[in-house]
């Protein structure tokens, strides 16, 4: 029941609309890689690859981490993040239900007391 913004999905689709970026995702599916390695693999300049990775990162499809002078890219955790958000939303639904249930049970208890049982 949590609503994700369409801009988020738009970002994903526009990120995936480019053949090089799809190739980068495929490559990262086989293992993490540095931007330099990706640039070599796709015969691009470092600057060009940085731009592509930036778009993928913006869409939540890739995460990057800089260790020393090397920036390593890996597939993003967007599916996991979405599941976590869904579970939290579901938990809030049930918490609201149980809060309402508390009141009903409280009324039932009072009714029994009132009946002298």
């Amino acid at each position, binding site marked *: *029941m*949590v*609503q*994700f913004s*369409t801009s988020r*999905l738009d970002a*994903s*689709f526009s990120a*995936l609309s480019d053949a090089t970026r*799809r190739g980068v*995702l*495929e490559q990262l*599916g*086989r293992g993490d890689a540095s931007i330099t390695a990706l640039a070599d693999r796709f015969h691009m300049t470092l600057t060009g690859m940085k731009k592509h990775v930036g778009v993928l990162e913006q869409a939540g499809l890739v995460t990057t981490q800089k260790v020393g002078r090397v920036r390593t890219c890996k597939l993003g955790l967007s*599916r996991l993040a*979405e*599941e*976590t*958000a*869904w*579970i*939290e939303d*579901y*938990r*809030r*639904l*049930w*918490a*609201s*239900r*149980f*809060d*309402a*249930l*508390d*009141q*009903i*049970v*409280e009324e*039932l*208890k009072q009714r*029994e007391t009132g009946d002298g049982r």
Partner: protein
Amino acid sequence: MAADQKSDPAAGKAATTVERTSDRELVVTRTVNGPARLVFEAFAKPELFKQWWTPASFGITLISYEADIRTGGFYRLEMGHPAMEQPMAFFGRYLEVTPPSRMVWTNDEGGEPGAVTTVTFEEKDGATLVVVHELYPSKEALDGAIASESTGAWPEQFEALDQLIVSLDAGA
């Protein structure tokens, strides 16, 4: 998936937890301050059930509800939410209704075999631990439920994205 142990923000309320315990299972737990027979009654009597199942505090309203709550019985309810153009219908059968400890119902609104919900009521010191266990027919079914509800009005787009990711994975 890690358990969500966060307690409810309002003071004095017991914590509701939700955990995806496996690829196919979700478990919700909450302790209710009252004996099991009364908590069970609130689940098993339609006139009580409809007072709490669609909490106004969550922005949902009950549009229609009918149920025959006994083993072999049925339920059908429609909920509305401001973000939804059409009411959502939920229906299924009661596979087991055993006062005051256990209820099992099916969730048939999605067609195909849907999830099966088992609720158990365990009384201790005047309070009742309620455990809601939802078993989906497959990992894909639970993933699909999460994806379609996560994206609200955009399930088709999300399915397309999922398929693309799957095909990328398969190509790896």
